[in-house]
């Protein structure tokens, strides 16, 4: 029966990516690559004012521009009942095109449809808008005063959006009171932007029967389909959303943007396909930003360093609309992970969010819903505590880590950490970087007046949203799905509700299926992003693909295996109970020589299924029982130039524990990329607004993406603590490096400057800020 060939395992193999051949030959298929007969281009007129009444919009000149077909404004949309679109967590809404007034600079005011990109831009330029400027609220602390009310469309006459809290406020206050030492620090995690290299865009077209095909840069195509139905009333069966190749996403391609609605309206109104591709400026100024959290962190401890309590009060700036993409019940996302890797007996976290005249958002940029903010707060806080107690930051961490035997560990803020071995991961990191030698070098350097710093971050993440009893977006539970079909000759197709943006799902999903079924991953095709073919899923963000969809795929494969077992029993003429799955094939228990491969079973499923149901297909929805909790130990080594404030990251080691590793090459690549984004956030990236509400970082000349020259060479390693509840023990990794690294970078800089008495610098840690901190510290020292 068996051909005798050995089938190898596929999970854990550094398999080259199956998607790469098309990308390296310029055969990728991104939204802007699409072209359809009669296609029009759309351009958006945007407001230069952050807060202003719209006195008049004059489109007379614009419609005269050669090539311009139509111009629509907020009034037109409002009349059609399309004035507003819901934001994902369901308790705010966002204007599609400004109605009555504009609430942030670069807000969408009108849409122009034309025969070419150039004509659309000419038309947009010709739209005359008269504004009457209103007082601007450019920060949440001004917003809090409620002197200027921004959102008069809302019932509540306040700029306050929500108050959210978790933990025991009273006991935390008491514990802090009783602590030997309490550190307090205001930390700002600045507003940043995912800025994928491919901007957002779409092509909307209706066929002759009125069915909408909507190609769009979406990390969550099914959610888009549902959202389009909610906004436009087009029945969901009349909508096909296709998310083709995505040039990065990082959270930016989760929300539904006003431009998409305008393109659909234009396509409907004009009966022609409409393409809208935003410019880099539009991307940075109007689509989902991340962070903008002002966090007041208090940590209490005994004098020996044992932590006693944690309190974090946050003021959040959501901009003009609360367009965060957090799950409904979690307006501040997973911020409750702020107790980190440490055994706080009690803790309290609260977030108050405000509207301001800034771009809307609050999305999860390469992070599982506010986990980056939380990790930064606790990891920076632990360093400040170590400094004030005169303890080694490593020892302080080690002393307070959740111990291996404490898992599953119930945190003070309500999570149940699934698994981990924090001590081991840290030990591996210390050993690998040569901590003792670095400490010795630092002592020598300090004696010479040189500024060298070593910074740590030993973070715990919470990813894989999420269990349906807690998590939903627009009411839709955050499960995910997979459908697998095995073809007669032993190849197959897997479809999932996720959408890769570079993570390599076409490879890793195939590896999971191949591992579970003993097939060749090269012959497992992966298809995502087409709502007509893929089963419903919530998409790819928040490191949820592997924990949720990856599990669904493994479970679907196991379903197939169970069906295959029956056919194998039929083929080997034994009872089903006598067949076992061993060494990637079915064999008769105790008779290794009698076996059939999955390939053989697959053929039989279509040619000779016996009494069993023919075919070999399965669909599986997976509702995770818990989140997964990846962790890591990161170490940064920096040298600071006193004269210029320049920080050179000399070394950076990331030891990650993301549970079972499906493809080590891809995991390493994910870590490299996340670290580089973390590096950028720590040192150079910020969406800054001046006090008048002007966005100052509107393109890549001022919103800085590090190049190959600035980016450090990364060192990586892994420890493996499988998740006990995930079918293959995987936890997710894409976001860990972006979550964990900012604190390590900042901690290293502060460590370098600590001999001068510098305690904290807010990100981005620019040369100017470092130089100023040194200068001020030295001036203070010089004073008697």
């Amino acid at each position: 029966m068996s051909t005798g060939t050995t089938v190898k395992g596929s999970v854990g193999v550094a398999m080259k990516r199956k998607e790469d051949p098309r990308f390296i030959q310029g055969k990728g298929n991104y939204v802007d690559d699409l072209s359809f007969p009669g296609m029009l281009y759309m351009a958006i007129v945007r407001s230069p004012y952050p807060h202003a009444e719209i006195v008049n919009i004059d489109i007379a000149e614009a419609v005269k521009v050669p090539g311009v077909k139509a111009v629509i404004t907020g009034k037109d949309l409002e009349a059609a009942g399309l004035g507003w679109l819901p934001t994902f967590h369901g308790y705010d809404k966002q204007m599609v095109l400004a109605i009555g007034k504009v609430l942030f600079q670069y807000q969408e005011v009108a849409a122009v449809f034309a025969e070419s990109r150039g004509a659309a831009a000419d038309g947009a330029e010709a739209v005359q808008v008269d504004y009457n400027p209103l007082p601007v609220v450019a920060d949440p602390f001004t917003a809090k005063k409620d002197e200027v009310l921004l959102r008069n469309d809302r019932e509540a006459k306040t700029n306050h959006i929500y108050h959210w809290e978790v933990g025991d406020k009273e006991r935390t206050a008491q514990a802090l009171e009783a602590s030997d030492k309490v550190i307090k620090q205001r930390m700002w995690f600045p507003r940043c932007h995912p800025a994928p290299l491919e901007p957002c865009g779409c092509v909307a077209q209706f066929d002759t029967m009125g069915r909408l095909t909507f190609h769009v840069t979406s990390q969550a195509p099914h959610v888009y389909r549902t959202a389009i139905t909610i906004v436009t009333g087009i029945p969901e069966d009349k909508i096909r959303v296709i998310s083709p190749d995505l040039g990065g996403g990082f959270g930016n391609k989760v929300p539904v943007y006003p431009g998409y609605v305008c393109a659909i309206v234009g396509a409907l109104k004009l009966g022609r396909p409409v393409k809208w591709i935003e410019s880099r400026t539009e991307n940075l100024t109007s689509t989902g930003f991340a962070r903008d959290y002002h966090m007041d962190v208090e940590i209490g401890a005994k004098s020996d360093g044992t932590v006693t309590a944690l309190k974090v009060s946050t003021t959040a700036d959501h901009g003009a609309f609360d367009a965060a993409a957090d799950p409904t019940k979690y307006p501040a996302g997973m911020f409750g992970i702020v107790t980190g890797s440490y055994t706080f007996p009690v803790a309290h976290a609260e977030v108050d969010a405000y509207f301001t005249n800034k771009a809307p958002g609050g999305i999860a940029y390469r992070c599982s819903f506010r986990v980056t903010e939380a990790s930064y707060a606790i990891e920076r806080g632990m360093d400040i505590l170590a400094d004030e107690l005169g303890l080694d930051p490593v020892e302080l961490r080690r002393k307070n880590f959740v111990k291996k035997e404490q898992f599953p560990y119930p945190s003070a803020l309500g999570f149940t950490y699934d698994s981990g071995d924090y001590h081991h991961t840290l030990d591996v990191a210390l050993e690998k970087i040569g901590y003792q030698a670095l400490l010795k070098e630092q002592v020598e350097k300090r004696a010479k007046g040189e500024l060298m710093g070593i910074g740590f971050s030993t973070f715990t993440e919470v990813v894989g949203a999420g269990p349906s009893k807690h998590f939903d977006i627009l009411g839709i539970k955050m499960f995910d799905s997979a459908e697998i079909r095995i073809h007669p000759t032993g190849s197959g197709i897997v479809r999932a509700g996720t959408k890769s943006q570079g993570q390599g799902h076409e490879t890793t999903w195939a590896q999971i299926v191949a591992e579970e079924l003993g097939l060749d991953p090269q012959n497992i095709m992966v298809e995502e992003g087409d709502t007509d073919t893929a089963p419903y899923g919530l998409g790819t963000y928040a490191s949820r693909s592997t924990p949720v969809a990856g599990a669904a795929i493994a479970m679907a494969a196991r379903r197939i295996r169970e069906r295959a077992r029956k056919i194998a029993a039929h083929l080997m003429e034994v009872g089903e109970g006598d067949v076992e799955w061993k060494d990637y094939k079915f064999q008769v228990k105790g008779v290794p020589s009698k076996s059939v491969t999955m390939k053989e079973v697959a053929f039989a499923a279509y040619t000779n299924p016996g009494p069993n149901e023919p075919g070999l297909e399965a669909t599986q929805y997976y509702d995770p029982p818990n989140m997964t909790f990846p962790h890591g130990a990161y170490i940064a080594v920096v040298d600071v130039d006193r004269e210029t404030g320049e920080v050179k990251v000399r070394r950076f080691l990331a030891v990650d524990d993301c549970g079972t590793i499906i493809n080590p090459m891809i995991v390493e690549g994910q870590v490299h990329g996340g670290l580089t984004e973390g590096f950028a956030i720590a040192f150079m990236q910020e969406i800054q607004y001046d006090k008048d509400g002007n966005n100052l970082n509107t393109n890549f000349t001022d919103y800085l993406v590090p190049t190959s020259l600035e980016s450090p060479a990364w060192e990586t390693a892994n420890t493996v603590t499988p998740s006990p509840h995930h079918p293959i023990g995987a936890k997710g990794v894409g976001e860990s490096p972006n979550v964990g690294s900012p604190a390590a970078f900042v901690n290293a800089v502060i460590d370098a400057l600590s001999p001068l008495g510098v305690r904290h610098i807010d990100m981005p840690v620019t040369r100017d800020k470092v130089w100023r901190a040194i200068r001020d510290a030295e001036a203070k020292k010089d004073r008697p």
Partner: protein
Amino acid sequence: MIPAAFDYIRAGSADDAFAQLQRLGGDARVLAGGQSLIPAMRFRLARPSVLVDINAIPELRTIRLDDQALALGAIARDSDVERASWITERKWRLLHDVSRVVADPVVRQLGTVVGSLCHNDPSGDWPAAALAARAVIVVRGKAGLRTVPIDQFLVDSFTTSVEEGEMAVAVRFPVPDDRTAGAYQKVERKVGDFATAAAAVQLSLNADGTVREAGIALSAAGPCAVRVAEAEAVLQGQKPTAELIRAAADAASKKSEPQADLRGSIDYKKNLAGVLVSRGLRQALAHLGVQS
């Protein structure tokens, strides 16, 4: 983003280009490397009605080095300088350094030295270098060719002494003597950014080690690149000591009148001006084998 519509004229020769500019006056702009102009046009900040493209004129790409001067034609690319055979000679060290930090490596393939001087961005690299190296610009006007010393050429932010209808056709750098070296020190937030601050330095020494001529200039330190004559004077005729270098650096810091922006505050940039002049002088001296 798409530029506003314009008419395009491809000049077949330098004479043709000049004639077109004379004919069109203020409505026309020269398209050389286009690496500043085209992005500005995409944002519609620049909207010339006619572009006169001079890229198809081989005579303007020439780089001529004789006993007196190095002459770079109007479309000699930054990368032509970066890859020139003579660029590794010590006396051209300033140009060497600059040619490797202008914009980014790909932009340098099209970007031109003369174009950068004509653009006269207050934070550009070539204007400061040209000041330190005492370059002259060759401008073609109604009365024929004239040479303009760089100090007179740079008038104000984004403004030069080239009048409407005129055309800068080359820049000439005097050939330094063999006891010359320079350095360009630039602090930028990342590759491709304009300078937060930058210092161009060129030193020629006498046989006895005293300074025969010093050229010191700053970028991002005012409305346009600025010569620090005070620092040059400090060094002139002296053996460069640590003390004199400090004095020159202090003069540079004092002379620097930067604007506060996303790149840094005024006091930070003033500090940098001094630090970078000091580092540049030390580096130039090190090239000359002088410990400082």
